[in-house]
């Protein structure tokens, strides 16, 4: 054992002597992300090829369950522990900057003008005072999933407009003898992705602008907002093609083949791909009455923490450059199914025409990214808005005003200091 160790050390010393520039000792940096199987696997592959390119840098990846993620990051960095490069949700950027957990990316390696030109426009939200603080490897957007078998049986084509959506949903809804819905034409549920669809897509399609003043002022208590809400709740109350909470969760209904159509994010592709007996397709979100197309995009970013200094900082910069490179983005798409953050990678013919990812990638071109103060509270506002109408029987206009006021209160409190 001792001999083995000795020869190992000798071998290491010999290699170090042979390598040019190895006079500076090996650097070890830490990378943290939350646990999601495919993401961890993709990052392992990226780290392996990064270390091959940079033999003097070792990257250690640590991952946690999503629930503990923020707490651990917050506790570790101020204590001088934890990650040199960290993954965070785009909506957390302000909190992280204010708490001095992350530092700006150096402009020589990450030229803001180049990033502005090369990345999809929504990434601009990561720029503060002319400097980028964080960059995504991949982004996510929404699309309409449809059950091919159900649509074929009903003899209808996937819809391209909101009007067609209603017609296709009517043709594919099934009821039992007592009138209970046993198969929905279209899934609804504000608790899933519908609140994004409502905010950034429906309101804009009915001629509105959901927020003003850089997402600090709620602006949907308007005619457009009302029209969007009436369309949304009308799917259940007027057309009877859906039931809120049908089979507990929209994605469950779709997976079980009990829903003809379902709006969801690109991250759902992985779990649908291995569902046996389900034939499904994806198409772009239906266009609005005047042909307006819109989409919602969100993303996770990587940033360099304030803990990284000196040679660790240099190594962290190299690692950041590597994981935001074109190759990394393509790998992320292939392994995780999340979309490249640069049009140059995303909008290749192969990707745009991909049967599954094409609709999501095409959606990125006209996607909007909501700047949330508190995503779960802001979602809750819309969940409650629809509940008040569906369960409480409240007037839609009143409920909409109440929701707008409640969300404004959340924003005001967040931006107060």
């Amino acid at each position, binding site marked *: 054992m001792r001999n083995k160790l000795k020869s190992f050390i000798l071998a290491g010393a010999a290699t170090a002597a042979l390598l040019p520039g190895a006079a500076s000792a090996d650097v070890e940096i830490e990378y943290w992300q939350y646990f999601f199987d495919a993401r961890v696997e993709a990052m392992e592959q990226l780290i392996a090829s990064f270390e091959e390119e940079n033999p003097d840098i070792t990257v250690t990846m640590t991952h946690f369950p999503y629930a503990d993620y923020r707490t651990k990051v917050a506790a570790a960095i101020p204590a001088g522990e934890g990650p040199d490069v960290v993954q965070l949700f785009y909506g957390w950027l302000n909190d992280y900057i204010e708490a001095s957990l992350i530092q700006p990316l150096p402009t020589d390696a990450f030229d803001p003008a180049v990033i502005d030109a090369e990345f999809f426009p929504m990434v601009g939200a990561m720029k503060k005072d002319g400097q980028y603080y964080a960059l995504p490897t991949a982004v996510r957007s929404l699309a309409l999933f449809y059950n091919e078998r159900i649509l074929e049986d009903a003899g209808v084509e996937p819809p391209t407009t909101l009007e067609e959506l209603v017609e296709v949903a009517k043709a594919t809804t099934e009821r039992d003898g007592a009138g209970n819905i*046993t198969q929905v034409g279209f899934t609804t549920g504000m608790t899933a992705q519908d609140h994004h669809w409502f905010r950034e897509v429906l309101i804009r399609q009915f001629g509105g602008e959901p927020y003003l003043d850089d997402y600090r002022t709620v602006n949907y208590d308007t005619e457009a907002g009302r029209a969007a809400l009436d369309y949304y709740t009308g799917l259940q109350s007027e057309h009877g093609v859906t039931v809120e909470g049908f089979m507990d969760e929209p994605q469950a209904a779709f997976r079980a083949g009990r829903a003809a159509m379902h709006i969801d994010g690109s991250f759902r592709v992985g779990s649908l791909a291995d569902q046996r007996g389900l034939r499904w397709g994806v198409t772009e979100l239906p266009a609005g009455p005047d042909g307006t197309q819109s989409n919602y995009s969100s993303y996770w970013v990587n940033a360099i923490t304030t803990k990284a200094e000196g040679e660790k900082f240099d190594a962290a910069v190299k690692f950041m450059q590597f994981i935001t490179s074109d190759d990394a983005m393509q790998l992320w798409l292939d392994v995780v199914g999340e979309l490249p953050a640069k049009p140059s990678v995303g909008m290749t013919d192969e990707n745009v025409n991909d049967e599954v990812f094409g609709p999501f990638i095409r959606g990125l071109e006209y996607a909007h990214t909501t700047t949330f103060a508190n995503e779960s509270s802001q979602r809750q506002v819309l969940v409650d808005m629809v509940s008040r109408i569906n369960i409480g029987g409240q007037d839609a206009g009143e409920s909409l005003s109440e929701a707008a006021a409640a969300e404004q209160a959340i924003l005001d409190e967040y931006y107060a200091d």
Partner: protein
Amino acid sequence: MFRYRDLTIRQKQIVWAWIFLAVPVLFYTVIRFYPTGNAVLISFQDWNLLGSRTWTGLDNYVKLVNDPVFWKVFANTFLYLIIGTPVSLLISFVVAYHLDKLRFGHSFIRMLYFLPFMTSAVAMAWVWRWFYQGVPIGLFNNMLASVGIEQIAFLNSTTNALPAVLAPAVWAGLGFQIIIFMAGLRSIPQSYYEAARIDGVSWWTVLWEITLPLLRPTIVFIVVFSSIGFLRIFDHVFNMTTNNPGGPLNSTKPLVLMIYDTAFNSFDMGYAAAQTVVLFTILLIVSLIQLWLLRADR
């Protein structure tokens, strides 16, 4: 100068007592008292987990008093208590009373009743959540639909949701309460019952005059124990309403879920700490009442 051998035997005993006590005292200070004290401190501060803490005085408590959701949640918490405790007490007593008289298959049936108590609340909540779904998957609604009765919105209703969530929580706690009741029933001396039988007293009088009065310590224990349990209800509610925690429209949200939500979704630690202080106060009052009721001289 302090020398151990100069101490009297009594003093040596005290020294050793404290040496042994030091371990639990230290443990409690670090694991219990320090976080409790810290929580009280945070309740007067503003802290989002990431930044520095700033003092805000009574702001968090003022916000709490003016928050309509807090009062809704406060009422829900007591609804869980007021419905849950008597119902579970009554059912567990009736079951224990009859199980006590049963000879055939006694331990097997007792085991069946105890089983839910050993089951994970999370697993149980998810199974019940499935029971409560609408047609075509929900067990209860499928049964109703098959005999032509209209579906009941168990969870997706502001009036039915709270009892629906409470039902499995009551059921889960039954096993434990039944065991305690049976132990209480067994500890009543048989001679009282024999005397009653010789006097030819009715079944009702035996129950009312002998069994129940002698079960008082057992009943007080179960009432307090289950009260604290219902006041702290969380896992059943959270798991049955994960998509819309405490919903719809906050109709099932208990105080602990609001604390969790404020702390780990809104990252408003100060406000969450203020809520925990309120919960702590409520639990303290309940416990003090317990101590008062359990006093020997009453």
